[in-house]
């Protein structure tokens, strides 16, 4: 609807303000005179110039007339508006525009050509094809091939074998292109079972609709001859994409973009205010992670325990279960694919599997005298992966039966362990400066080499990118899809002694967040790499951050000050009143019973 209003507005603009209530005939006459006068400051139509593959002249006035200040050619502009009107179904208005502007949407030969293809007048369409004015011979041949191939199939469909053969020999063959395809076509004549229903795996010989053929031709012919469908809409969508990409703080849903103003989110879309402080751990909080469905949060502490928290529908986080049992601090946690179970790994100790609903420990995984250093679920939920102190990676089934052990220098004691959600790659650090990507099927290994030692890494949700935290206070973003390449660097946070974790987050994971030894949370925009927020509040190093995958406005941070902070959008002070009120420069916040 927006699109139509804009086009109508543009239409009126062109006509230089001619009254709407004048009878049509008068309007036409007036407008043709008006047009010559409305020249946008340029001279009268210049001499017409012809590109190598352009179509015949369409407009009576010069094709070089421009509108706006960026060289947009008026003839092209009007033509794509006409195309937009036709695809929206407003053919009367489209025809009206053509008449008023004197700019035909398509040259007459092209209109005839389109009609001939849709009518199945193949010979006619070939003849017209030569009259359209395409300079490139190979395009004419390819287009002829498509048309004649369709003619061939339609003849076969009507069981007219002799005519089909004649077409193949006298019309298709002489084009001298696609000789492999020509040979395949001859098989179709010879063998009845290769016909229309299509048996031979690769060649699906379903008779294509004529509109499909038209689309193929449209893609083949130069766009100046046949304007691509919905071209104006495509341009508008490109503009919206560019605006969204440029929007630094964009963290809201796509549906909120309007065509009437440029898209620009305010800083208020990033979580930047402490909403809640959770103080249930007895010692430093080292790690935390939201579940995939955003309903739970798990945190672990140097007090050897882990806590499962529940995120209420009102956004308030409350304690659900304490997971007691480990004898070392838990350094690695993994949510099961459907978020109903959790794996925790004590540092160089054992891996425990817990049920989220009951909080019960379902299984303990260990390997003799070796210590376990990391843990991860397989994406199908059936296996448990774990790194060992002897540098190998072990795979158990849920009952603890050892399925496989990847020996050799596969993982080091400090290493994280991640499996891509499609189950294809195992990601681990095999050396202090090297990340190893192991393909589970082919056993093929790729590497990411860094110059500095790696502290930790995180995988993006779409499995395409790896965020690597280094000792020199830099975060590196690597694309691991096909060619491994460095995409971006993020700097500003402080790290000199501890393991500090970073994460992806926000709508479409467009942001990067990291903890820091200066007690703040740092947030960057992923694309430009620009630091956009530092969140103050903690009174100790922030060791880990996690962004709620389902609620882009909720961020959690874990700190040496023994607390977890939940961050949300800045709200007006008057809205926040509750129990446990206390004053701080972050506004009023809830506390779990204790006063600050």
């Amino acid at each position, binding site marked *: 609807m927006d699109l139509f209003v804009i086009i109508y507005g543009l239409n009126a603009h062109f006509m230089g303000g001619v009254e709407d209530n004048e009878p049509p005939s008068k309007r036409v006459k007036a407008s043709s005179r008006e047009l010559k006068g409305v020249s946008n400051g340029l001279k009268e139509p210049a001499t017409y110039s012809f590109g190598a593959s352009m179509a015949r002249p369409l407009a009576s006035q010069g094709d070089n007339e421009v509108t706006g200040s960026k060289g947009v050619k008026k003839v092209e502009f009007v033509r794509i508006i006409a195309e937009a009107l036709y695809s929206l179904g407003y053919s009367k208005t489209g025809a009206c525009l053509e008449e008023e502007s004197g700019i035909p949407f398509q040259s007459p030969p092209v209109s005839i050509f389109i009609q001939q293809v849709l009518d199945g007048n193949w010979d006619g369409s070939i003849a017209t094809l030569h009259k359209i004015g395409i300079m490139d011979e190979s395009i004419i041949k390819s287009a002829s091939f498509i048309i004649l191939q369709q003619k061939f199939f339609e003849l076969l469909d009507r069981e007219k074998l002799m005519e089909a053969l004649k077409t193949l020999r006298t019309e298709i063959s002489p084009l001298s292109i696609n000789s492999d395809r020509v040979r395949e076509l001859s098989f179709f004549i010879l063998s009845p079972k290769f016909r229309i229903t299509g048996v031979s795996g690769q060649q699906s010989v379903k008779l294509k609709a004529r509109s499909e053929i038209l689309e193929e031709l449209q893609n083949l012919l130069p766009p100046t001859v046949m304007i691509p469908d919905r071209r104006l809409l495509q341009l508008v969508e490109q503009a919206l994409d560019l605006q969204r990409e440029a929007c630094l703080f964009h963290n809201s849903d796509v549906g909120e973009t309007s065509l009437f103003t440029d898209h620009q989110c305010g800083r208020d879309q990033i979580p930047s205010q402490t909403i809640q402080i959770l103080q249930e751990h007895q010692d*430093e909080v*080292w790690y935390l992670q939201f579940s995939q469905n955003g309903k739970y949060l798990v945190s672990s502490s*140097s007090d050897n325990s882990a806590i499962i928290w529940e995120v209420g529908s009102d956004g308030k986080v409350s304690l659900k279960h304490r997971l007691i049992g480990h004898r070392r*601090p838990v*350094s690695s946690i993994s949510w099961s694919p459907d978020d109903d179970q959790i794996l925790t790994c004590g540092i160089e100790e054992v891996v425990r599997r817990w049920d989220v609903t009951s909080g019960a420990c379902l299984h303990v995984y260990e390997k003799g005298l070796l210590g376990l250093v990391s843990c991860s679920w397989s994406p199908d939920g059936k296996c448990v992966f774990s790194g060992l102190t002897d540098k190998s990676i072990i795979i158990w089934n849920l009952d603890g039966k050892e399925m496989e052990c990847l020996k050799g220098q596969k993982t*080091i*004691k*400090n290493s994280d362990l991640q499996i891509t959600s499609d189950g294809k790659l195992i990601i681990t650090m095999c050396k*202090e400066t090297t990340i190893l990507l192991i393909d589970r099927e082919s056993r093929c290994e790729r590497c990411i080499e860094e110059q500095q*030692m790696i*502290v930790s890494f995180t995988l993006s949700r779409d499995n395409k990118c790896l965020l690597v935290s280094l*000792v020199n206070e830099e975060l590196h973003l690597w694309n691991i899809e096909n060619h491994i390449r460095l995409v971006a660097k993020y700097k500003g946070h402080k790290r*000199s*002694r*501890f*393991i*500090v974790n970073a994460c992806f987050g926000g709508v479409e994971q467009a942001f990067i967040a990291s903890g820091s*030894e200066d007690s703040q949370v740092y947030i960057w925009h992923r694309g430009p790499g620009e630091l956009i927020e530092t969140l103050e509040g903690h009174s100790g*190093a922030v*060791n880990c951050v996690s962004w709620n995958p389902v609620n882009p406005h909720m961020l959690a941070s874990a700190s*040496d000050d023994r607390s977890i902070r939940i961050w949300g959008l800045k709200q007006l002070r008057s809205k926040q009143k509750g129990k446990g009120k206390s004053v701080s420069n972050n506004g009023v916040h809830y506390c779990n019973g204790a006063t600050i």
Partner: protein
Amino acid sequence: MGRLFLVALEAKIYSCKYCKTHLALCDDIVSKSFHCRHGKAYLFSKVANVTIGVKEDRMMMTGLHTVAGIFCVKCGSIVGWTYETAHEKNQKYKEGKSVLERFKLSGPDGSSYWVSHEAQIIRSEQEV
């Protein structure tokens, strides 16, 4: 403090005398003839698990140097110093390398070093 990022070294290791954190490898010793207030000190081409303090200019027996103290990442005790810049041409080889005081280290065989009486009398830092 948070979860310490500690690098594990392999082979013959010198560790922090107080907390056993790995600091350097025997193979990385460049020179054993350095001296400090507490006696012997070794020059290493690289060290691990240390944090670097504030840079300062110091006049030593061999000339003016810009150095910074280095501290064990775990227990925070000072274990030596690192050379940032050497202002004399023939001392340039020290740049980027670090000196660990033998007194602060536990050797590869677990042995410690005890300062001799004469060394304690020396007040200023010296090197050869």
